């Protein structure tokens, strides 16, 4: 399936999707809200910032809510994908491209030129857009706003209002409603409010979004943070321990029981944005097999990169003398190498058959890391790792992966590549969870016997670009590392073929040649060959 550009715009286009007058009013209200933000961006100094900020955010929220109500509540419950491929915004039309470019520019400014947004330089007070958000920041944490506060506020607002939209769109679907409520809650509480309150309670603590887990939160174990954690006393230490526990204990248990969806579709902020704001773009993900091949290389390279980078960073600030502190550089390297070897060995022993050719790729990744670790041990001096400084490695990662990939490409390109580009190609957390989901989890998408009619709705609307149909039409369960368990394939399937389930590991992967419904003897003959 190719994802060619939308040419329908030049043809006599279906006009059934025109906006109703109520929707036009709603758009107007929303645009007023955005317009206030734009004016602030252009350095208009509003007299009463609290009022105008409230007005602006209020208008954006009200506009979206009114629009949504008119869009969905006037219709019966059911799948609402009419006209998706006719609308310019959701079919890579002009509107889609324009939105993509504007979003991308916004990210570039946000990451690299915050002064353009009005960030006060060298202790000066904020101006422009950022100043507009000062009152809210003062209210929450008692300090002036930063570009990250502005971004965080808009991000949270977006998840909330588009989450509302998504919940109405799927108001017949309890699974969709619950998980959306969940991401809305986690974004509002964990990413937005709690860190601000934590700052109020203890301003020594580093910003910590508790649900953001290493390696997604790649900077969690950097030196300055470790120092801050330790300086902040018991709470800080508790948070640090929580950071380690969440990746090594909590994550594996939950992923075993529920698959990676517990995180990607229920908790994560990136996932939250993709599922709400990004929902109109989910069908744009590339379903071709080559995209899958590229995906696997890229995402696992990022994982290798982040493991190396983090190891090098931690290594660089650990001591050499074991009498001062037990965790020395060598102990640390040994731990990392031992842990990776354990995982690699267990996988090979128990899952060799399932892996097939992939085992080779796994082995390559493993070898790269181990050799580097050995290299680290023998050839490093001070903060250097081979020729690179660990600091260089860190800044490169932060720039390439942390900013460009997850922000600019990951979100800015929603209208072009679909909503989960980052989650699919870039996120190292997704790689870790996905690996476990594939190897050691009760989660799968069960296919309903022979009921598939190969229509393709599931594949089209899979934001991760999984060709769900390829499995369903063979009566085979879907067990894929990239599946984030959003449940949309199941929702849009017109024949009730797909069900996300947690069940026993046995028989989870069940390739079939002859589907249920045919001659039983033939099925036995072929499928058990």
């Amino acid at each position, binding site marked *: *399936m190719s*994802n060619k550009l939308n040419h329908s715009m030049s*043809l*006599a*286009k*279906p*006009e*059934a*999707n025109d906006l109703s007058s109520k929707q036009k009013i709603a758009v107007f209200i929303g645009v007023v809200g955005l317009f206030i933000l734009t004016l602030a961006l252009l350095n208009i100094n509003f007299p009463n910032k609290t009022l105008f900020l409230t007005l602006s955010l209020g208008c954006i929220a009200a506009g979206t809510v009114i629009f949504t109500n008119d869009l969905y509540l006037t219709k*019966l419950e*059911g*799948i609402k*994908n*009419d*006209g*998706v*491929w*006719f*609308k310019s915004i959701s079919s890579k039309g002009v509107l889609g491209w324009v939105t993509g470019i504007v979003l991308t520019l916004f990210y570039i400014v946000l990451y690299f030129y915050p002064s353009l947004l009005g960030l006060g330089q060298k202790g000066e007070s904020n101006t422009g857009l950022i100043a507009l958000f000062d009152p809210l920041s003062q209210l929450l944490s008692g300090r002036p706003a930063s570009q990250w506060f502005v971004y965080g506020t808009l991000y949270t607002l977006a998840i909330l209002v588009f989450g509302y939209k998504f919940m109405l769109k799927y108001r*017949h679907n*309890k*699974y969709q409603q*619950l998980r959306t409520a969940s991401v809305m809650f986690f974004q509002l509480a964990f990413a937005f409010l709690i860190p601000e309150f934590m700052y109020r309670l203890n301003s020594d603590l580093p910003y910590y979004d508790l649900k953001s887990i290493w390696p997604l939160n790649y900077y969690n174990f950097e030196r300055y943070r470790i120092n801050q954690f330790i300086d902040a006393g018991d709470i800080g230490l508790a948070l640090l321990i929580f950071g380690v526990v969440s990746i090594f204990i909590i994550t594996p248990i939950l992923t075993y029981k529920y698959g990676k969806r517990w995180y990607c579709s229920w908790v994560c902020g990136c996932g939250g944005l993709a599922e709400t704001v990004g929902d109109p773009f989910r069908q744009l993900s590339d*379903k*071709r*097999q080559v995209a899958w091949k590229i995906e696997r290389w890229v995402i696992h390279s990022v994982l290798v990169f982040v493991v190396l980078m983090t190891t090098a960073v931690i290594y660089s600030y650990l001591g050499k003398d074991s009498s001062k502190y037990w965790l020395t550089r060598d102990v640390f390297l040994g731990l990392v190498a031992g842990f990776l070897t354990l995982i690699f060995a267990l996988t090979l022993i128990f899952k060799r058959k399932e892996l097939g050719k992939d085992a080779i790729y796994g082995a390559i990744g493993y070898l790269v890391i181990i050799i580097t670790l050995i290299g680290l041990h023998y050839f490093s001096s001070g903060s250097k790792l081979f020729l690179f400084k660990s600091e260089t490695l860190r800044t490169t990662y932060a720039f390439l992966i942390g900013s460009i990939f997850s922000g600019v490409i990951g979100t800015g390109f929603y209208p072009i590549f679909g909503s989960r580009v980052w989650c699919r190609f870039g996120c190292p957390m997704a790689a870790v969870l996905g690996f476990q989901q594939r190897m050691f989890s009760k989660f799968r998408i*069960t296919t*309903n*016997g*022979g*009921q598939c*009619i*190969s*229509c*393709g*709705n599931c*594949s*089209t609307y899979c934001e991760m670009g999984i060709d769900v149909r*390829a499995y369903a*039409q063979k009566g085979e369960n879907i067990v894929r590392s990239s599946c984030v368990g959003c*449940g949309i394939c*199941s*929702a*849009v399937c*017109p*024949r*009730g073929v797909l*069900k*996300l*389930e947690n069940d026993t590991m046995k028989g989870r992967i069940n390739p079939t*040649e*002859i*589907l*249920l*419904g*045919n*001659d*039983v*003897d*033939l099925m036995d003959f072929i499928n058990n060959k």
Partner: protein
Amino acid sequence: MEHIVIIGNGISGVTAARHIRKLSNKKITIISAETDYFFSRTALMYIYMGHMKFEHTKPYEDWFWKKNNIELKNGYVKTIDTVSKTLQFAEGDNMPYDKLIIATGSKPNKFGWAGQDLNGVMGMYHKQDLDTLEKHAPNNKMCKRAVIVGGGLIGIELAEMLNSRNIPVTFLVRESSFWNGVLPENESQMINRHIKNHHIDLRLSTNLKEIISDENGKVKSIIIEETGEEIFCDVVGLTAGVSPNIDFLKNSNIETNRGVKVNRFLETNIPDVYAIGDCAEQHEGINQRKPIEAVWYTGRMMGETIAQTICGNRIQYNPGHWFNSAKFLDIEYQTYGWVFGNKAKPDYEQHFHWKHEDDTKCITVAYHKETNEFLGINTFGIRMRHETFNTWLTEKRDVNYVIEHLKEANFEPEFYKTFESDILSAYKNQLQIV
């Protein structure tokens, strides 16, 4: 190398080709005059509705065929010479074959209505029909009203399609209630109400008399048989069933009736010529099935079966328990085993019916009056598990067992409200009343 030629690149022909390829390295050619590549006919509606583009309806990427060494030919087979084993194409060229599989599918029924060939009158079967619809009904300005004739599965899909572009639809159904030749009365009536809730003008017990032309040979209106009412419209959809697409065989030696006559091995009267899918007609229906089964699943099963025979493991077409599915606007429908509507219901068949108060979910369980054996279930708005019912049917469970264990068959998404206990208590109540 033996050359296997398949006419028709639908689900039956393609399934046959894929399985033959798995079992052998014979030369395989698939012929079609419709599209270059296999697409899912069942997804046609979603293209018009804007849920998918045509590309998305192709179950295999275009490189798949070359990689699997399956040759594709775009051409229309005009005649078959079974003596010299050659096909003649309308384009003038020929193709020899060693074994031939006819998998040409169906075509829409037309019952000789006056005006049935006017511009703006169409069936809804082939890709070309979709293109025609797109031309005549791109939006509700070009098409102020559409009339659909024939209340079957394709008719209701066409109604949903037009409805998605806010084109007013009048839906003429010959029967007294939607699809009640197949569905039990309660279910059929629930669907009637659902259709009307979508603002579709459903006319039951209503027949088409004729289609009237404007001065340019385009449809202007239709006349209703019963009342003589004239309904102005720009498009008329003829969806009164389908029949095998085999006119091109009429002058060949291959025996045909409504479809291509085949035995249980899917062999025609001519050696090395087989027929599968919508166009095949059994001498007798198998296990209460009809001799011609125009459904996706049958085409697929026949494809799976014929591949064995072609590759030396000659086996009968021996389908398992009947199942099917559809979607009526927002209501999904699944069926397992046999549940008959009033017209075809055997004497021994008894029904238990439950309906949810929201009028979008219901089930009907059929069982044997004397033995209580579970015969089948229709389920609307509640997804159920194929495998579970298949097992119960094979084990010949009785109806009490099935209703008590209905939970095991639940296939709804997680967190959905379940209705098994409501159903069970309704069932017990009914037993007390009887």
